[in-house]
């Protein structure tokens, strides 16, 4: 085992470099982070510029400008799901998993390197996207809607970064377990796309649905509740982080145990 331990120290940076090379050398995974930013910030700007006025009149005292600042995430996060799924599934779908594991036989090093690179790219994407949403909102939202010196502005901005990052980890983890893009997207897309709206419409399910990762994690991007069943912003984020930890742990376990 002593040889295995010394191997881990040197092998991890090399495995990270390899994962970064893989991600950058396939067009889909190279450009999807850019798509996340473009969709999230682009839709945000449109909503800020054209919807805010009417929304404020309609909502009155209940008006929450941050639902508009981060509105683009409703579409943008789908590109993040696709990114994380494709980084992992591309390895299994193409069969390069055999060459990759022959090159990095320590499965923990392999999975950890892939998850680290996905997380780092999601973090950078989230920071750019969230800053773009927040700063552009200052310009395109009606005067006085948000302030760049207010704590809540930066809480919601941090929320978008954390949400995208945790979402990427969850999607990568699920894909490590399921391996194919169809199965992974089949599980994840309903969860983040349909699950939210459909499930919360059913009375009994509402109380459970609030613990779903996207429901729990999105609350921090808003000041006000959409309905009475929502978790607190920070509690919600902690619940989503819990999902991410479980997904990453499951990925490490299955990758280590299973025959390639």
């Amino acid at each position, binding site marked *: 085992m002593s040889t295995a331990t*010394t191997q881990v120290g040197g092998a991890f940076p090399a495995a990270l470099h*390899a994962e970064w*090379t*893989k991600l950058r050398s*396939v067009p889909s995974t190279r450009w999807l982070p850019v798509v996340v930013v473009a969709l999230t910030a682009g839709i945000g700007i449109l909503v800020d510029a054209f919807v805010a006025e009417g929304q404020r009149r309609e909502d009155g005292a209940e008006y929450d400008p941050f639902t508009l600042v981060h509105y683009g995430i409703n579409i943008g996060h789908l590109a993040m799901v696709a990114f994380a799924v494709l980084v992992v599934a591309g390895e299994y779908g*193409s069969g390069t998993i055999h060459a990759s594991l022959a*090159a990095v036989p320590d499965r923990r090093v392999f999975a950890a390197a892939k998850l680290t690179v996905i997380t780092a790219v999601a973090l950078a994407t989230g920071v750019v996207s969230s800053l773009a949403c927040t700063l552009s909102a200052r310009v395109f939202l009606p005067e006085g809607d948000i302030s760049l010196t207010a704590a809540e502005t930066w809480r919601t901005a941090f929320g978008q970064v954390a949400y995208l990052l945790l979402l990427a980890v969850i999607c990568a983890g699920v894909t490590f377990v399921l391996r194919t893009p169809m199965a992974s997207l089949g599980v994840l897309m309903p969860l983040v796309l349909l699950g939210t709206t459909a499930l919360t419409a059913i009375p009994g399910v509402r109380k459970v649905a609030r613990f779903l990762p996207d429901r729990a994690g999105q609350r921090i991007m808003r000041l006000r509740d959409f309905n009475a069943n929502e978790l607190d912003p920070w509690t919600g984020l902690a619940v989503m982080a819990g999902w991410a930890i479980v997904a990453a742990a499951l990925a490490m376990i299955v990758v280590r145990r299973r025959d390639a």
Partner: protein
Amino acid sequence: MIRIRNLTKRYGDVLAVDDLDFEVAAGTVTGFLGPNGSGKSTTMRMVLGLDRPTAGAATIGGRVYGELREPLRHVGALLDAGAVHRRRRGRDHLLYLARSNRIADSRVDEVLDRVGLTDAARRRAGTYSLGMRQRLGIAAALLGDPGVLIFDEPVNGLDPEGIRWIRDLIRSLAGEGRTVFLSSHLMSEMALTADHLVVIAAGRLLADTSLAEFVGEGESLEDVYLRLTAGHEQFVGGGRA
């Protein structure tokens, strides 16, 4: 040198590899023969640490694969030439493998040159012919200048020129003192390439002998092989090729 000791792999009820025991010596080409589903690929995957043996072990220079530090510098393998990401350029496929084992980027261009893929290096692997993919897979195996090479069906789908090229390459690799472990269904090709033969069927060892002893006088390798493996052709182990 590759050493296989009491190697066994069971998938559910099926014994895909059943107590195999043999060695692959350095400086020779060892041909690995057996009908479809006889356990050849499973054996190779266990040597590479991809599948876990149910019992026994495969070692390379006395160590199991998972203990090798930067394993591409010790063992190079071509398992499935089709296993490339179609949207990734050929050169990038080699680049990520090289970087995972801290092999210099310049080595990628060397192996591309050696397999004759320099001109196609920046094309996406999805545009490659089967022959080009075989060459890319062989380039990947050569990246770390390894002492042990494992090729699973490297001549599949190649044209005569490509077949001769691989045969000459394999002979020269063994001539440099490397251990070459090669599977193929092409008996005439194996007769021209291998020094030593290991024949298995239904996961069990049938023969482990030099080519000259195996074939004897006045018969072809194909004749002897078919007689030896008669009755095993239909066997399919564990649903895996």
